């Protein structure tokens, strides 16, 4: 049992993988992503904020860049201003130095020499000749210090009176400073007292007290009307020490040297020499009185860039006076184009990006809205799908009910005495009815496949009987069409396989159904092989063919009657692989020889573990699939073209379902098709191998139909010119346990029947075509033969039976004349059908054992058994009890779960229990669970005592069968879960009851007998 559980796991694993694939395809990967949806109302606000932010940043960038350029402009102005100031200062100081030199000249030659070496003429000439050194001074003059006491003497000495600035005789003062020496350019100030002018007087007083050069504030010069200043230098009589006091300096003063500076020209010249003269405006101020700056150069009200004004200090070596230079640009600062462009570009980019993000956000929101809408629609569609499934379930349920009536009646009919033909008809009708029920279930399953919820069963089943069932479905149709329908299952394929018989059958039914539908002549051939075997054969085909060459030529000699292909019907098939050329090797591998001793090749069984791969081929000689339509074959609702459905009907969904199912079974489906030649569909399926020891025989029995074993040991000769056909016939006979020989013609068969041979065949099966084609030649031979045999032993004479696809009345007559039996075995062959025919031929004595079938069998199973029926409904209880009693069972009843438990206290003598599921208080499931619990305890106790082995049974396990009105899969699952062994429908159906009960009573000795 452990091994089979393992197998089940293995299979379900394979199936699950495919299920997963199907799921993935249908659902697709689901992704989680950031949801803009939650913030959809913030989108426009965020956009506005973004635009504002962008503008702010743009402004900041503009400011930053503008500031930078302003700074540079300022620095430039600063440097220019400083440069100008420094140069002006230098020039000025050079001039001052020259005046200083003149002062020294005057003191040296006028005072230190006696008599004076300088007079007016000398001074005028000297100053005129050295004027180039003082280009900024309009003129220099020397004024002597004259105290009032010396005025008279002075005036007398020079011959003129001291005058004031107004050219009048000077009034009396403490001292005077009349100009005695002057340059020619300023000779008009000769004899004018310098101390009479307010400005000059201050200058003179400051100069002699400080001992340095001093300058006046700016004023309009007399000659040029330019703004200018007067520079005054003191001249001392004696050399003063550097640390002399103010008083000493005043006393030592002899006179004053002065010069007029033309500041305006000075600055004008200076600026003219410098680059960038035009760009800036320069003003020079005297700021000694800081509240009232006096302009020395430039115009106060001159236009210019007033926003940026720079000042530089000027030092004219006069500690008393302060000067400054003010510079500014001539033009306003130009617009900073790069900053503007950058800013505009930036803000445009920013706004654009914002807009794109905004748009994207909007788009996402819209898409999500649509998605939600789609999901809504999807869920509605799914709901509709559920509704459809419910509808299907309801309708199919409604169909099932009357169908059960039909089937019941057929079952009754089959219990009556019928001829083989009638029996076959009735059986066919029953099989078709069952198939219809199955079909309805399949309709339900289709919905499941679509939902990916289909799970495959893993139960042991007899592959051959499944295939036979499928064949029986189509036998009528194929017979009417005159198509030869045949099935062949390789001997390597185990008798029982583990898988889902329903699905397997569904696929085969679909394929064969298609073939029957689309085939008008020729044959349909269904074959089942092991995949490994098929591969091995194909691989070794080349090798074998060389070795078998001789044999082959012999065979072709034998088969020379037919020039056609070596397929089943002689028509050409689409896939060369499947023709007799290859098939021969299969059969050869399986121990097929022309004189047919049979032993199935078992080497493959042992070689491959628990799982086997089957290859199923359905070959037909139909209209084939047009090349253009071949890639659409497995798509749902696709037929070759629209005319196909008109001509042949059908929806075209079958193949797509088959494909799904095959994939679920871990296989593949493919086909080869040639238009107007035929199609061959091949699929593989992974199934479990049924362990012979593990599975109880009852299972086998149930599945293996009820093939009678009474034919075991019979000897049959098959006469058939076509080896493929012969192989098929042989296959069916072998299943009945019949020893088979094959002869290619009647003649060959006659030879084997030659007298003197010990083993006479019991039956000779002759294929109709072979018989009639060789009739002329063979008919004389046969009756003679028959007569000879007749002398020896009339009873021993082999029965002759015809096998035919279709046969006319006249042909039957002719055959009868030739000594054939009345019964003609009609194709397609099925083991059970062949058995029925043989029975009819061999005598009716055996018929009873077959005919009554399950009913009598059930009787033998149940006779004397003690059975407990648990049902709260007393009518049901009574009926169930009555039915079981009829089969000879000893029935006790309980009306509730509790009562049943009491009766079932261990030890008890019951052999089985039928349990209603729906009961008040304690339902069937619960009751079963309790029973199992009790049994478990008892078993543990037994085990402790070690008495199990002695008794030879597996401890207590009462078979509990559920009785239920609705036999659906889910209920079965529930049953198994709660420990039940199976279920029967309520009210009892004979077949169903038999199947359920047979499982438990098969190999147990009947306790009563």
């Amino acid at each position: 049992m452990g091994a089979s559980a393992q197998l089940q796991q293995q299979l379900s694993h394979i199936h699950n993988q495919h299920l997963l694939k199907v799921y993935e395809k249908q659902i697709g990967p689901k992704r989680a992503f950031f949801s803009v949806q939650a913030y959809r109302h913030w989108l426009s606000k965020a956009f506005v904020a973004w635009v504002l932010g962008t503008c702010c940043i743009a402004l900041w960038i503009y400011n930053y860049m503008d500031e930078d350029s302003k700074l540079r402009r300022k620095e430039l102005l600063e440097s220019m201003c400083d440069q100008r100031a420094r140069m002006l200062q230098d020039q000025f100081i050079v001039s001052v130095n020259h005046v200083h030199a003149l002062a020294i000249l005057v003191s040296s030659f006028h005072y230190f020499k006696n008599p004076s070496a300088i007079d007016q003429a000398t001074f005028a000439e000297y100053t005129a000749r050295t004027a180039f050194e003082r280009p900024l001074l309009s003129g220099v003059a020397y004024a002597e210090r004259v105290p009032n006491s010396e005025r008279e003497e002075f005036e007398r000495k020079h011959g003129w009176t001291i005058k004031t600035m107004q050219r009048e005789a000077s009034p009396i003062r403490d001292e005077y400073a009349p100009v005695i020496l002057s340059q020619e350019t300023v000779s008009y100030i000769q004899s004018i007292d310098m101390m009479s002018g307010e400005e000059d007087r201050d200058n003179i007083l400051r100069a002699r007290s400080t001992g340095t050069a001093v300058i006046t504030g700016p004023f309009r010069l007399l000659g040029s009307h330019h703004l200018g200043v007067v520079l005054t230098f003191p001249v001392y009589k004696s050399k003063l020490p550097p640390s002399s006091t103010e008083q000493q300096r005043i006393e030592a003063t002899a006179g004053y040297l002065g010069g007029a500076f033309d500041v305006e020209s000075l600055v004008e010249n200076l600026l003219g020499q410098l680059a960038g003269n035009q760009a800036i405006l320069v003003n020079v101020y005297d700021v000694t009185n800081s509240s009232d700056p006096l302009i020395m150069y430039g115009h106060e009200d001159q236009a210019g860039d007033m926003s940026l004004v720079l000042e530089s200090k000027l030092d004219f070596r006069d500690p008393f006076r302060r000067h400054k230079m003010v510079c500014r640009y001539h033009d306003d600062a130009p617009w900073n184009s790069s900053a503007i462009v950058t800013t505009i570009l930036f803000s445009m980019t920013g706004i654009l990006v914002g807009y794109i993000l905004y748009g994207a956000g909007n788009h996402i929101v819209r898409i999500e809205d649509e998605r939600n809408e789609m999901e809504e629609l999807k869920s509605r569609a799914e709901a509709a799908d559920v509704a459809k499934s419910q509808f299907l379930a309801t309708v199919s349920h409604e169909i099932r009910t009357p169908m059960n009536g039909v089937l019941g009646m057929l079952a009754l009919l089959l219990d009556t005495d019928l001829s083989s033909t009638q029996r076959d008809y009735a059986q066919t009708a029953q099989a078709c009815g069952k198939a219809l029920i199955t079909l309805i279930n399949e309709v339900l399953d289709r919905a499941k496949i679509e939902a990916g919820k289909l799970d495959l069963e893993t139960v042991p089943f007899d592959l051959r009987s499944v295939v036979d069932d499928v064949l029986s479905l189509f036998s009528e149709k194929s017979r009417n069409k005159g198509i030869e329908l045949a099935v062949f299952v390789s001997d390597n394929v185990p008798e029982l396989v583990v898988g889902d018989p329903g699905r397997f059958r569904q696929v085969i039914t679909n394929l064969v159904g298609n073939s029957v539908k689309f085939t008008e002549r020729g044959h349909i051939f269904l074959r089942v092989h092991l995949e490994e075997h098929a591969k091995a054969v194909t691989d070794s085909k080349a090798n074998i063919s060389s070795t078998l060459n001789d044999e082959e030529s012999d065979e072709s000699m034998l088969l020379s009657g037919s020039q056609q292909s070596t397929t089943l019907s002689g028509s050409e098939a689409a896939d060369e692989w499947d023709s007799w050329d290859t098939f021969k090797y299969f059969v050869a591998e399986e121990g097929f020889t022309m004189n047919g001793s049979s032993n199935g090749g078992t080497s493959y069984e042992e070689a491959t573990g628990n799982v086997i791969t089957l290859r199923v081929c359905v070959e037909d000689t139909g209209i084939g699939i047009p090349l253009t339509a071949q890639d659409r074959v497995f798509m749902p609702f696709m037929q070759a073209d629209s005319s196909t459905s008109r001509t042949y009907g059908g929806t075209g969904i079958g193949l797509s379902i088959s494909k799904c199912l095959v994939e679920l079974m871990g296989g593949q489906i493919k086909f080869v098709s040639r238009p107007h030649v035929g199609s061959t569909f091949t699929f593989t399926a992974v199934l479990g191998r049924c362990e012979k020891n593990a599975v109880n025989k009852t299972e086998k029995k149930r599945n293996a139909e009820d093939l009678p074993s009474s034919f075991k040991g019979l000897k049959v000769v098959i006469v058939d010119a076509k080896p493929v056909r012969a192989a098929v016939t042989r296959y069916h006979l072998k299943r009945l346990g019949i020893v088979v020989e094959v002869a290619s013609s009647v003649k060959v068969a006659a030879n084997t029947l030659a007298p003197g041979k010990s083993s006479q065949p019991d039956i000779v099966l002759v294929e109709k075509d072979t018989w009639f084609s060789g009739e002329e030649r063979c008919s004389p031979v046969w009756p003679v033969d028959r007569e000879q045999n007749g002398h020896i032993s009339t009873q021993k004479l082999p029965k002759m039976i015809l096998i035919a696809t279709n046969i006319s009345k006249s042909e039957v007559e002719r055959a009868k004349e030739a000594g054939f039996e009345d019964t003609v075995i009609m194709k397609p062959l099925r083991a059970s059908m062949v058995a029925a025919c043989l029975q009819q031929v061999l005598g009716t004595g055996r018929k009873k054992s077959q005919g009554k079938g399950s009913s009598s069998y059930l009787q033998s199973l149940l006779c004397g058994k003690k059975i407990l029926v648990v049902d709260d409904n007393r009518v049901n209880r009574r009926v169930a009890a009555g039915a079981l009693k009829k089969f000879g069972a000893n029935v006790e009843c309980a009306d509730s779960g509790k009562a049943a438990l009491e009766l079932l206290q261990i030890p008890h003598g019951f052999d089985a229990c039928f349990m209603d599921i729906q009961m008040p208080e304690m339902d069937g499931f619960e009751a079963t669970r309790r029973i199992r619990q009790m049994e478990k305890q008892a078993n543990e106790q037994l085990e402790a005592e070690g008495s199990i082995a002695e008794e030879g049974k597996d401890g207590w396990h009462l078979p509990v069968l559920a009785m239920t009105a609705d036999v659906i899969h889910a209920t079965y699952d529930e049953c198994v879960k709660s420990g039940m062994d199976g279920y029967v429908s309520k009210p009892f159906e004979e077949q169903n009851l038999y199947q359920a009960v047979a499982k438990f009573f098969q190999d147990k000795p009947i306790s009563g007998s």
Partner: protein
Amino acid sequence: MDVLSQLRHQLADYTNSLHRDGFLDDQFSQLQQLQDESSPDFAMEVVSLFFEDCQKLVTNMARALELQAVDFKQVDSSVHQLKGSSSSVGAARIKNLCVAFKTCCDSQNRDGCMRCLQEVNRECVLLKNKLQTLFRLEQQIISAGGSIPM
């Protein structure tokens, strides 16, 4: 044995009509098949059990439905019982009625339940009469010395 064959004919016709009109189904035939020498009155016994049950259940349900607060669960379980019994006996019409009844119960439709109950009651009485006739015929055949063909 003219009378006997006539009676037999009558019985067959009557049985057929019952099947045709849907009063009975296959299950009833099976019930009849179950009776043999050891239990000659099996069918009649079961049928009378059934009608007793019927009467009880109908009364129960009628009482339950008259109450102010109807306990539909209780009604439903009664219907289930009735359905089980009727399908065991093969009373097809009652069985079908029970299906409708159950839907009414599930949707807690009181009026529908009442209607169904009345119909069930009517059908019960009808079937009882029909079956009484049937059994009488059978009795007549047996008393005439024949056996009932199955």
